[in-house]
């Protein structure tokens, strides 16, 4: 779960946090050298500089840094399923591309992604397998990537209209 507004934890550095989280998930300690290598690799993927991981978790982070930090965790911890809750909100174009690139690099048969978004921008870089439209907490329409493009062109109104007419019918 990549949070939209991740909370700050003063005094806890990003690198220590990631190491403990990884240790907890694997149930065994991760050798420092191995961990550093993994972290460096993922940092390069996300284009974050070295100083970043020594900062305190989310403390004084800009909106973009918070999002990037969420994706860095995702890349390091490698969950089976990831929920990106409006991770693209508040990111500039370059940052969206970096995040999208990270998702593309990670995607594969061993990991699932649920990307929640209000914009199609991120979909210019990430090709979804399935698109669902959610209205009032329910999936009202599903389709392939073309659905997203259709929404981008026509807006949401027609979907809502369809749902309402179905209810009445």
């Amino acid at each position, binding site marked *: 779960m990549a949070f939209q507004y991740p909370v700050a934890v003063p005094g*806890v550095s990003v690198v220590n946090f990631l190491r403990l989280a990884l240790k907890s*998930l694997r149930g065994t300690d991760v050798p420092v050298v191995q961990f550093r290598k993994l972290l460096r690799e993922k940092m390069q993927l996300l284009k974050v500089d070295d100083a970043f991981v020594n900062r305190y978790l989310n403390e004084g982070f800009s909106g973009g840094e918070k999002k990037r930090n969420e994706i860095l965790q995702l890349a390091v911890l490698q969950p089976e399923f990831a929920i990106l809750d409006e991770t693209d909100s508040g990111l500039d174009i370059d940052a969206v591309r970096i995040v999208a690139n990270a998702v593309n690099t990670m995607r594969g048969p061993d990991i699932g992604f649920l990307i929640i978004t209000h914009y199609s921008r991120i979909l210019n870089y990430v090709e979804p397998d399935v698109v669902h439209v959610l209205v009032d907490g329910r999936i009202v329409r599903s389709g392939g990537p073309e659905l997203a493009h259709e929404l981008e062109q026509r807006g949401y109104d027609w979907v809502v209209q369809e749902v309402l007419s179905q209810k009445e019918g």
Partner: protein
Amino acid sequence: MATTPEELLRDLDKQYLEKYGFHDPEQYVYKAPKGLSRQVVEEISWIKQEPEWMRQFRLRALEVFFNKPMPTWGADLSDIDFNNIHYYVRPTEKQGRSWEDLPEYIKRTFDRLGIPEAERKFLAGVGAQYESEVVYHSIREDLARKGVIFVDTDTAVREYPDLVRQYFGTVVPPADNKFAALNSAVWSGGSFIYVPEGVKVEIPLQAYFRINAQNMGQFERTLIIVEPGAYVHYVEGCTAPVYSTDSLHSAVVEIIVKPGGRCRYTTIQNWSYNVYNLVTKRAVAYEDAVMEWVDCNIGSKVTMKYPSVYLLGKGARGEVLSLAFAGRGRHQDAGAKMIHAAPYTSSVITSKSVSKDGGRTTYRGLVKVYPGCVGVKSNVRCDALLLDEESRSDTYPFMEIEEQDVVIQHEATVSKVGEEQLFYLMSRGIPEAEAIAMVVNGFVEPIVKELPMEYAVEMNRLIQLEMEGSVG
């Protein structure tokens, strides 16, 4: 799994017991009978073969002690039974210059506490006090050649009588408070440090204080003189066995930092939960001198300690970094005092306290600025973290500002370990207990990072140990 308060406390004690709380059989050369009297004081002075002025100093202080009422403004001290304490215990006849000189069981104890190992790795000098006496002392030869003196205070009285007499009791007079008077009457051991002009001791000097006997009173007396432009970092640590009856530790520390000198004094207090820790620590700082106290209180039953700096010279700077951790049955009444008695002096007080399982922390501080001390700056920040509903934290920040042209800042926060923080950390797979520990470690980090690396590691480990108690 521990569920009742008593079981929790026992669990904590068990963890402490394994690492520090063991005790040795007593094979002492002298142990004063319980209780305090003129005779006991005379005897201590006689055994130490002290000069007459010190004997008189002790006896006068004893009168002051008897005449002063118990302080009632702070932590609860009503259970202290002054008649049930041994005021002087001499474990061995002579002090060792090498660890091999010590009785085998004492050497084993310090081995177990890791002191000789620390000495080899990262210390410039070590003093080790066992009960009332410093049983081991050493200083690196190059420092000794530069004129740095680092001995126990009893030795200093014998070997450097003029220096000691000039400063002893001048920063903390016996009449300062009841426990300073008690210490002045029965003091034994402690460190004496003299750093000559311009000499910088880059590697820390350390003293370790160990109480072993039951119903023991330890009253070390430390005196540090930093000459102009000199620097020293002194570190002290302490532990004791776990007993069901109370012990008393009441030290006095006096520090003189002359113009342009700097002294840093770091304490890692980890007494067992049956020790009353009532300590008076005070420094005077002259022109452009810097005095820093890094005061970490993790253990003890009750601690009352407010390291202070009297800023007596223009441009002098004082800093106190205070860290208090109170678990069940403990009360850390800690803080700081900054007395601005000269213009353009500055002070910073940073206090971080953590209370858990019904433990209690108190920040008690004073910033005083005398009239005419223009350009004074003072910044006080105290943060308290509560880990549960039953714990308690109080803040008493006194300010007595008698000058207009000053900048005084005060900020205080009280927070609980946030649900949101825990949720965030736990959503990444970190178990709850470790997540709480992580938040706590993060909270105290600004203080811990000021410790030398080896002590920072130790401090984090101690906090981890304290946190484990709550998981059960």
